[in-house]
């Protein structure tokens, strides 16, 4: 199947952005090709133009906003850039197909999934209804969907994220296209599902000899599946080459930075804290969600089942798990943003689980939280200074004293104290996350909870914010509860790890031993699923250094 035939050949492609954008072109002078049976990864951080490149190939860019101004795109040797829509429509689906990031929204919610696959056959072939139905079942089985005939009759909302993404892939593959474009197809999925989808794409490419153009921001994913890599930044191509070249021989500083920002799965050595009483602990913490209806039993979700944890001063406990594991529920119960149904939450020995809102207020300053989304964590209408001093002033600190401390904290989190009177929209995502950390520190808490605090950041920024969190934990002698779905990140910062699944703690222990010698089956699955687990991302970098 190793046919060197070039399927997609992009030469000097430039796409202009609408007027008054922050730069002139979305992408500039991009050239690379994808051969049959080859996976080419286009990798870059947000704003690199990687998705625009993919959409331009499909001709799916909004017509008035993104206009190709130069270059050519050859599909099987034929020019497809700026050809008439009807011709392009015929190629879409038949010769090239695309899958998207959000399997939740990419399928039409009111049409049965089988019909959505069949639609592809209906518009491009003259198959009869029964032939179509047979082919639908065939492709669904090809993407390893169980019980295809009955699943074909379901609606998208009845399927899981991974199943929906398989349906998307089935739609794309229905006509055996030469080129499959995958735009961050696993970003919205859990790590175990991601691993399965990556395996599936790789398997399909091998069996059908499809050329795959794979867009991603995650070098771990790249390492897992790529044959060739194209690195993009701010609409420009930084370099391209084989996977081996990128990992071991690249001398481009940006590529090296991207690679070295992937945290290794091996935890660094940390002194284990055993001394001292736990400052935060929970005992059989329970949270259930359920609709109490008049009719029948409402569906009850056990978001947290008898969760027990302990964190000492100066220690970081990592809580890892996939979506629906209950890790965020635990965090939000401890901050009392939601009320637990049972159990105890002990802060310095005092149970706060059942306190009324009024009795809770004095305790609130002891536990602070940093959220995931830097864009929604700060009130856009208030200057960041006001956001930082809000807490201390609630507890009677004078305005001048609060602002003086805010200035100090800005320096602690690595920002200029003069920026206090600026508004959130004037800062980047990473800077906002630093401000949120400053806001939390302003309360002089004992416990800091980071709820996916680095998950929404680009990898290069992620590393810096992680470092900052670890630093303030040390400097302020905080007990830190670090919630994340990312095992790589958790390995870097946590002293101990707690693995959760469906509301239950399945394993708990020192980070090094959990990673080296996982006791629970699920922990093993999680670790195995981490993309690019076999690749040592430090190797090439250290070689160049």
């Amino acid at each position, binding site marked *: 199947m190793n046919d060197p035939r070039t399927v997609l050949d992009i030469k000097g492609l430039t796409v202009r952005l609408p007027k008054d*954008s922050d730069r002139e072109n979305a992408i500039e002078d991009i050239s690379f090709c994808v051969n049959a049976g080859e996976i080419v990864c286009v990798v870059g951080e947000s704003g690199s133009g990687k998705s625009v490149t993919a959409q331009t190939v499909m001709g799916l860019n909004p017509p008035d906003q993104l206009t190709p101004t130069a270059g050519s795109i050859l599909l099987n040797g034929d020019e497809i850039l700026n050809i008439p829509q009807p011709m392009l429509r015929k190629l879409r689906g038949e010769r090239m197909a695309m899958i998207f990031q959000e399997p939740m929204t990419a399928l039409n919610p009111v049409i049965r999934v089988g019909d959505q696959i069949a639609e592809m056959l209906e518009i491009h072939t003259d198959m009869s209804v029964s032939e179509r139905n047979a082919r639908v079942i065939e492709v669904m089985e090809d993407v390893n969907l169980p019980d295809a005939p009955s699943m074909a009759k379901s609606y998208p909302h009845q399927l899981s994220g991974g199943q929906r993404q398989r349906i998307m892939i089935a739609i794309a593959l229905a006509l055996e296209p030469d080129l499959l474009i995958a735009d961050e197809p696993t970003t919205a999925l859990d790590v175990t599902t991601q691993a399965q989808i990556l395996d599936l794409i790789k398997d399909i490419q091998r069996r059908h000899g499809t050329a795959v153009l794979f867009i991603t921001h995650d070098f771990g994913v790249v390492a897992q599946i790529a044959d060739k890599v194209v690195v993009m930044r701010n609409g420009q191509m930084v370099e391209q080459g084989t996977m081996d070249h990128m990992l071991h021989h690249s001398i481009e500083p940006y590529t090296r930075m991207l690679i070295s920002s992937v945290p290794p799965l091996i935890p660094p050595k940390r002194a284990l804290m055993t001394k001292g009483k736990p400052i935060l602990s929970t005992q059989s913490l329970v949270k259930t969600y359920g609709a109490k209806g008049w009719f029948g039993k409402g569906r009850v979700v056990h978001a947290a089942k008898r969760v027990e944890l302990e964190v000492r001063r100066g220690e970081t406990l990592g809580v890892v798990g996939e979506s629906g594991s209950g890790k965020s529920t635990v965090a939000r119960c401890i*901050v009392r943003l939601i009320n637990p149904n049972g159990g105890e939450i002990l802060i310095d020995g005092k149970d706060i689980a059942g306190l009324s809102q009024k009795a809770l*207020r*004095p305790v609130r300053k002891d536990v*602070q939280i940093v959220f995931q989304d830097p864009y929604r964590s700060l009130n856009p209408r*208030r200057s960041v200074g006001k956001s930082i001093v809000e*807490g201390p002033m609630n507890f009677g600190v004078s305005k001048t004293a609060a602002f003086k401390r805010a200035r100090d904290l800005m320096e602690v989190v690595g920002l*200029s104290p003069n920026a206090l009177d600026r508004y959130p929209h004037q*800062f*980047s995502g990473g800077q906002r996350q630093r401000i949120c950390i400053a806001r939390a520190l302003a309360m002089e808490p004992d416990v800091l909870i980071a709820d996916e605090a680095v998950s929404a950041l680009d990898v290069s920024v992620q590393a810096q914010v992680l470092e900052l969190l670890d630093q303030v934990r040390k400097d302020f002698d905080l007990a830190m509860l670090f919630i994340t779905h990312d095992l790589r990140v958790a390995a870097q910062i946590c002293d101990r790890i707690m693995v959760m699944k469906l509301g239950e703690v399945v394993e708990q222990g020192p980070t090094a031993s959990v990673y080296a010698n996982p006791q629970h089956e699920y922990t093993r699955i999680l670790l195995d699923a981490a993309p690019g687990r076999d690749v040592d991302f430090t190797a090439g970098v250290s070689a160049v250094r």
Partner: protein
Amino acid sequence: MNTEVLPVEDDEIVKSNKPSPWVRLAKNTSVRVGGFLFSIILLMSLFASLLTPLDPTDINPSNRLKPPGYEGTLRDNDGNKYQVTARMGTDTLGRDIYARVVYGARISLIVGIAVALISVAVGTFIGLVAGYFRWVDAIVMRFMDGLMAIPAILLAISLVALSGASLTAVIIAISVPEIPRVVRLVRSIVLSIREEPYVEAAISVGTPTYLILWRHVLPNTISPLIVQGTFICGSAILLEAILSFLGVGIPPETPTWGNIMAEGRDFFQIYPHAIFFPGIFLSLTVLAINMLGDGLRDTLDPRMEGKF
């Protein structure tokens, strides 16, 4: 520490290319046209006495039902005579329709603005409380559902009929059916804003509830409420005209556009001007306000499109 101090210099600041809301407002065609029309009507109502020497209630039995452009002598109630052109003709009591239309603008605008202010103020208060306190919510929203199920016009008509026809009664009667709409809007904003991480952050730094509502929630309701208030103003003016037209609103001798039209109904086929002139002014006023509302929505709160 390894992280170097990141100086936030001016060139590092994320630049926003969007012009400020005020600039966008001033550039919006709907706002310009609507604002211009509205200003004219507003000026007309404020300076009504400069536009006509006559009082809108002056009766001239000898000059009944004259066509537009009639030139003659009209008398005010004190017996002073004026040689005027009745630009819009006279009605069945010989009152100058032009004078009544010009003065009628006052009532319409007073009703529109008063209803908008009252229903927004009351609705916002109820909406904030309902959105934030669950137990209030259950009771209040059921009541609002009930109130919304009664057609606005019937509710208003009955309220006026019971409390007696007067300007105040009409204003209150029109405000009542508008309140649930404001409550729903404010409540939905509160429910979505209270899920925002910045509100949760405020809770976790111990900010008391009333301050959270005041600092973090209320500011988010202002733009939608300006938009909603504008539309309420328009529909209140319409509803007032309907009440007067049906003869169940403000007393007939008061010059309101609806009353002028009600007065003209019987002789409509021969003297359509008594209905068309106030009708045109009424339509233009409501049009101006609705265009203003559209423009405000597009610039202040694009998400609101279609939700009113």
